């Protein structure tokens, strides 16, 4: 049994949990739902004792195991070492028996049907999905009475989600109490016996049945227009801003395309077909192996991000593990917004505070960044959605003409996603040229004038947009593939 009563927790002046109460019974799967910053992660950290609450109590009976969203595996150890970190097989002298470590780990992985992960591999070399699976196996292997999973499926593919669901159900049958969080409503509907909704650090409701529409309303506290905004048409004869020909970099074999002013160009395809390399190469964060880039008709060499920024290219890049996004997490919202335009803000090397404050205020208002003290509050203390808004704000301040948006809505709650959709349409209307990638194909289908489908590092198809139907993009990325 797991019972949380009247827990409050603040960080600095920010209240992450206010008098939160919540209980889960043995033999049930209990979902925690809420937007980013609703306090789910904090609650989970309180549950498993990583954080001490300012007030309130947590009662548990039985062994508790947790798998975190920010992976808690030691990156430089092998998978086997991570699996047995807390209780390695030891010999008579108390020394770790290295010879049996890997075989034991193999056995454990096989028992959980994860024979595709090499127990001798260094953890950092695994994909995010495999790392997440190792983290889950480590928690499952303890056969706990209470299992707490924070966003366990965010990095997983369908089949892996099914694998996890099977284990969660098995534990439930054994009388274990399983608590998990997810941003994907379908999983919550499939798996959870009960759902508890959190908003602004407080408990809103706990129900056995809850529809998605009602849940979104409860989570955001307002009803949300779930439709995509209408894209303004690309003006006839709009100038070509970016011309890419024969670009090769990393997994990107050879890609050529034009991007026009006021156009949103989508980059679709299955995961890992060179999309990330395309974005990073255009921004100069990854060395291109060949090909040319022209900006407004002039050839452009980008060897480092500084070259791209000078030329008027901005990138909002949210990598798979979300740990670094180009933001300086310990620095304030103000510093993070201003760092891209320090040249413009300073005279004789001195930063003009009034100009800086005005710029920061304008972005905070325009993007609706929720920060209690934007001038001093570290960006790392904001919710994920607000962090992404700050990243976006930095490039809007630089007046970049070309925006490279890579998965900006990843791990963001519904309300913030909606804000981003509106923003993308507005930016296109103001004549910005936008290259858009999203791990949610649905977004590419609705938000783009044209869609390039990448396969094995080449453009496999070009679709006229808005495609409207994500299935078409998926079909195009699979076609001719046996």
């Amino acid at each position, binding site marked *: 049994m797991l019972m949380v009563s009247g827990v409050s927790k603040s960080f600095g002046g920010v209240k992450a949990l206010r008098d939160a109460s919540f209980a889960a019974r043995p033999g049930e799967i209990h979902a925690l739902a809420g937007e980013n910053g609703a306090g789910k992660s904090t609650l989970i950290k309180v549950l498993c004792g990583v954080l001490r609450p300012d007030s309130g109590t947590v009662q548990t009976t039985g062994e508790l195991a947790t798998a975190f969203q920010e992976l808690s595996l030691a990156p430089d150890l092998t998978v086997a070492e991570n699996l047995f970190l807390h209780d390695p097989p030891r010999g008579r002298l108390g020394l770790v028996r290295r010879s049996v470590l890997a075989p034991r780990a193999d056995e454990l992985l096989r028992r959980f049907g994860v024979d595709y992960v090499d127990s001798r591999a260094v953890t950092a070399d695994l994909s995010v999905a495999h790392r997440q699976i190792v983290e889950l196996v480590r928690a499952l292997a303890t056969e706990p009475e209470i299992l707490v999973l924070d966003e366990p499926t965010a990095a997983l593919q369908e089949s892996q989600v099914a694998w996890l669901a099977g284990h969660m159900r098995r534990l439930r049958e054994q009388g274990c109490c399983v608590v998990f969080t997810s941003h994907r409503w379908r999983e919550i509907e499939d798996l959870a016996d009960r759902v508890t909704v959190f908003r602004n650090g407080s408990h809103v409701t706990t129900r056995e049945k809850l529809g998605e529409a009602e849940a979104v309303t409860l989570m955001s506290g307002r009803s949300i227009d779930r439709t995509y905004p209408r894209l303004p048409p690309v003006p006839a004869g709009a100038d070509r801003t970016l011309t890419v020909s024969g670009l090769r970099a990393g997994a990107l074999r050879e890609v050529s395309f034009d991007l026009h002013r006021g156009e949103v160009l989508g980059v679709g395809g299955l995961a890992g077909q060179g999309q990330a390399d395309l974005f990073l190469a255009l921004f100069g964060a990854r060395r291109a192996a060949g090909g040319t880039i022209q900006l407004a008709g002039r050839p452009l060499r980008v060897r480092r991000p500084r070259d791209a920024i000078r030329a008027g290219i901005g990138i909002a890049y949210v990598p798979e593990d979300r740990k670094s996004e180009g933001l300086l*997490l310990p620095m304030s919202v103000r510093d993070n917004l201003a760092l891209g335009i320090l040249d413009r803000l300073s005279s004789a090397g001195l930063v003009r505070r009034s100009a800086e404050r005005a710029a920061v205020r304008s972005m905070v208002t325009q993007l609706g960044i929720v920060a209690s003290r934007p001038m001093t509050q570290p960006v790392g203390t904001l919710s994920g959605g607000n962090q992404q808004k700050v990243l976006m704000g930095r490039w809007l301040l630089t007046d970049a003409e070309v925006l490279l948006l890579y998965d900006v809505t990843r791990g963001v709650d519904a309300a913030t996603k909606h804000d981003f959709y509106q923003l993308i349409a507005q930016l296109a209307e103001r004549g910005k040229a936008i290259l858009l990638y999203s791990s949610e194909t649905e977004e590419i289908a609705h938000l783009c004038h044209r869609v390039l489908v990448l396969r094995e590092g080449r453009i496999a198809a070009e679709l006229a947009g808005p495609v409207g139907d994500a299935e078409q993009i998926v079909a195009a990325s699979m076609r001719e593939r046996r």
Partner: protein
Amino acid sequence: MKQALLVLTGTYTTYLLVYTTSLGHLPTPFDYLSLLNTCLPLIFVAIGQSLVVLTGGIDLSVGGIMSLGIAIIAARGGTATAALTVLIICTACGVLNGLLVARGRIAPILTTLATLSIFSGLALRTLPVPGGSIDPGLRAVLTHPDVPTGLIWLGAAVGGWLVLRRTRFGMRIYAVGSDEAAARATGIPVVRVKVGVYGLCGLCCGIAAVLYVSATTSGDPNAGMPFILTSIAAVVVGGIAFTGGRGSALGAMAGAVALTLVTDVLFFAGIDPLYQSLFQGLFLVVAVLLGSGAVLAGNRRRAAA
């Protein structure tokens, strides 16, 4: 910063106590002045070290650069021209460090360990035996034994830092230190920032060398060496994070004063000089415990967000 002030207040109170019980009266203005003149070189080296540590690096060669500066000015009769030469050469030494670290991508600890050897070797070549002199006119301006000219330099140090903090360069130092990859993705010229930081550190060592010769009236080609550890200690006491990006040089300045006070406390308490090193070490441990306590609390606060 907070714990640096705490440590400084604690050390100062102890100093007052020990001084008055052993001499029967409060410290005179003369005592404060000589204390200030003794402190100044370490204050400057500590500022330089702070800048480097804020970018996530470390500079072990401060001792070598300072020794070289001391050797040059003392060997050249301590004229104003010699002082100016010292500032230029020391800055160049720092820039060399910066280029090796930023362009050559050699770890700061390795780079500066190597250049420490080079610079102190050059210092011995310039002034093989202790000696040399300082021009009395220059001395009257720098560290007058009776007139508090030292206050000007202290003011310049504090003021210089406060201005730097407000500059574009100052902001970039913090950005590079808190996440170099993210800073690069923001378009910050990381190489230039690092070269600038090591160069400024060299300049600070040069200023410290000039002030040191002025305060002691002669030169010793090994005199810079103790400043390696004391400057790092001042940075630690000052609460600057060795991972970079957090802290203030003002803290390190307070740390530098506290470290100098400890030596005086031991002297007035009549502690056998043989035990000095032992007590200084104890002081450092206590100060660091105070600091790391504060850092731990900060981490706990951040981890949850």
